[in-house]
Structures are given as structure tokens and as C-alpha cells.
């Protein structure tokens, strides 16, 4: 089957910032993304888990976004503001997708 190059961007971000991040993604013109729940983790800000949590403040989300490779830099610039000051990590990987026109 015909496959096309794409980038798979995976962003772990505080849930409270999720909406702000996805708004930036939409503004930056991405055609789609998916949000997966995260149950716990560890990082510079220490160990956390959904079980020890009150309210909305502490949880994380995992936002996965598939885009055409040439849009990567613009996208990273666009979302930099929410990534910089807030808890979270980003990773980018090469991927293939089936229908290039969707991304």
C-alpha cells in the first residue's frame, strides 16, 4: 500500500494546559490530533499518579499529532509558549501514514 512520510509528535502536558495546547495546534493548522489519558509518571517535578490527586491541577495528558514533515518546525514554534513554562515533555518520531492528504 502507498505510504507517505509523516512526523508523529507526542506531547505529555499538564491536563490543565491541554485545551490551550490544542487550541494552538488548531491555530497552527494541524488537521487532527488525539488525546490519550496518562495515569502517572515521573520527571523533574517528582513522581505522581492519578491516585494521589485532588482536582484538576496535577494530571497529565498525552497529545499525539501526526503531521507532514515540512510542517514540523512551524508547529513546534507555535506550541513553544505552553511547553516552555509548564511541566511536560515532547518527542518526535518518523512515521508513515496511508493518505497524505489527511495530514
Amino acid at each position, binding site marked *: 500500500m502507498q505510504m507517505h512520510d509523516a512526523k508523529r509528535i507526542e506531547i505529555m502536558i499538564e491536563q490543565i494546559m491541554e485545551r490551550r495546547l490544542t487550541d494552538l495546534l488548531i491555530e497552527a493548522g494541524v488537521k487532527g490530533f488525539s488525546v490519550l489519558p496518562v495515569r502517572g509518571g515521573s520527571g523533574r517535578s517528582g513522581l505522581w499518579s492519578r491516585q*494521589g*490527586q485532588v482536582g*484538576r491541577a496535577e494530571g497529565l495528558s498525552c497529545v499525539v499529532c501526526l503531521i507532514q514533515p515540512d510542517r514540523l518546525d512551524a508547529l513546534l514554534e507555535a506550541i513553544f509558549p505552553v511547553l516552555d513554562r509548564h511541566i511536560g515533555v515532547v518527542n518526535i518520531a518518523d512515521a508513515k501514514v496511508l493518505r497524505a492528504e489527511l495530514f
Partner: protein
Amino acid sequence: MDMILTLAAQNLLSPIILCFALGVAAALARSDLNFPEAIAKGMSLYLLFAIGFKGGASVAGHGVDGQLIASLVAGVILSALLPLIAFALLRSMTKLSTLDAAAVAAHYGSISIVTFVAGSSILEAQGIEFEGYMVAVAAAMEAPAIVSALWLISRQGEGAKSMDGALMREIMLNGSIVLLVGSFVIGMVTGKDGLSEIAPFISAPFKGVLCLFLLDMGLVAGRGLARAKGAVSGATIAFGLIMPLIGAAIGLLAALVLGLSVGGAALMMVLSASASYIAVPAAMRVALPEANPAVYLTLSLGITFPFNLTLGIPLYVATASAVIGG
């Protein structure tokens, strides 16, 4: 004094406090006992709905009057004022940075609705009546403290994100405020008839649900404590015990000025003494991401919440009785 001790002892041996203690103990012993997030959220929605509705239904009997309006205004002022006091205290007592101090201060101006529920439940057990609209005062006190704290920061010239419109809407329309105010209004509109229709759901099992909820809160507080070891200094902990007393005193003053009943005054003290651990932390993560969550969560949830629940509330009730009831 005797009354305080009796009340405190009674309170400490009540099922709701023992459930909280069980949760703390289980968490410290690292048991895997835990409540699913959805269940904890479900219980808190239930509690908010029930106290809002009951408050509204009780006001329906009395009607809206000047005292109600005055109490709401007083709540807003208290919430906006207390962070300034807390901030000054923190800066003189502790070594917290401006940012951390402001973030903590915001928590102490705002309120903990669970502490309020526990307080009203203790009043009911003692047969002490209180103004039904105190629940609306609670809602009014949630947000102003945040604005105060951000103002403190911006005055210091620190780079706090300016309070944008999105954040403002999030704070004013946060779920617990909307549910509390909404069910309060519904209770007011449907009155006693409405209450009697759904009393087997919101009144009869209320205390039992509160027990389970506080068991979960105990687990959360206990786990927070275990994780936060060393995150806060002795002086900071001291603040977490002194500030509620100061808040309560100012709350009592306000209650005297407003002419509230003993029960109303006790709840005004409880509100002023309590510290937020839901709405404010969320707002802080957005507006002051550099402030350390371990500090403010440990203080409000690990120190002040258990203190109010166990010793604070009986103390406030006894004081209100002595000052106003006597």
C-alpha cells in the same frame, strides 16, 4: 474551654473523622487501598449538589434579604483580603519566594468546600441551626483570592502571566462554583416540596457518603504528606496552623458585623479558616506555573485541612457559641 474539649473529643470520635484518619493511616502504611478517580469525583458532585440544594431550600423558607446580600459581599471581601494577610505573614515567617508565597496566599483566601460540609454536618449533629445561604457565601469566596494573589505578584513586578480572559472565565465558571450556585438556586425555586421529593437521595444518605469521601480525602492527604516530606520547612508548617486561626478570627469579626447566628458565624469562621485545594491549585498551574505545587498542596491539603477537620471546627463552633450564643 471544657466545651471545646468535649466538642473536640466528640468530633475526633465521630465516624467522619475516624474515616479520614483511616485514610491517612492507610496511605502512610502504603496500603494499596484507593478510590477510582471517577468515584471520588462522583461523590464530590453529590456533596456539592446536596449542600447547594439544601441551602437553597432553606433560604426559600426565609426569602432573600439584606443580610444575605451583605454576607455575600463580606465573603468576597474576606476572600480578597485574607491573601494579603497570608502573604505578609509568609514573607515574614518563612523563606518562601515571592511567587510561592503569593501562590500559597491565594489558597488561604479561597475555601475548602469539604471543610465547609464537615462543619455544617457537625453543626447539624449538635442541633445548631445556620443560615442556608452560607453555601452561597462559600461559592462567593472561591475566586476573589486568586485575583488578589495575582495582583500581589504583578505589584512585585514578577513575570506572572497576566490574568487572561480564558483563565478568568475558567475560575468564575469552574465546575464546583456552577454546581453549588446552580443547585442552590434550584433548591430556592423548588423549596420545601422540591426538597422532600429528593430528600431520600440528598439528605438521608448524606453523612454516609461524606464518610466514604473523607476516607478517600484521607488517602489523598496521606499520600501527599508521604511524598512531600522535606518539601516544606517547619516555619511553613507553622503558618499552616496559625493562618486558619487568624482567618477564623477575622471571619468571626465579619459574622459579628453581619449579625449572623451562632451556626452562621461558625461557618463563616470555617470558610475563612479553610484553604482551597482544588480550584486554586488549578488556577496557579496556569497563571503561576513556576510556583512549586508541592508547597501549596502540602500546606493546604496536608496541614490545614486535617487541622481544621479535627481541631479547628470544634474550636470555631465553641468560640462562636461562646461569643454569640452566650
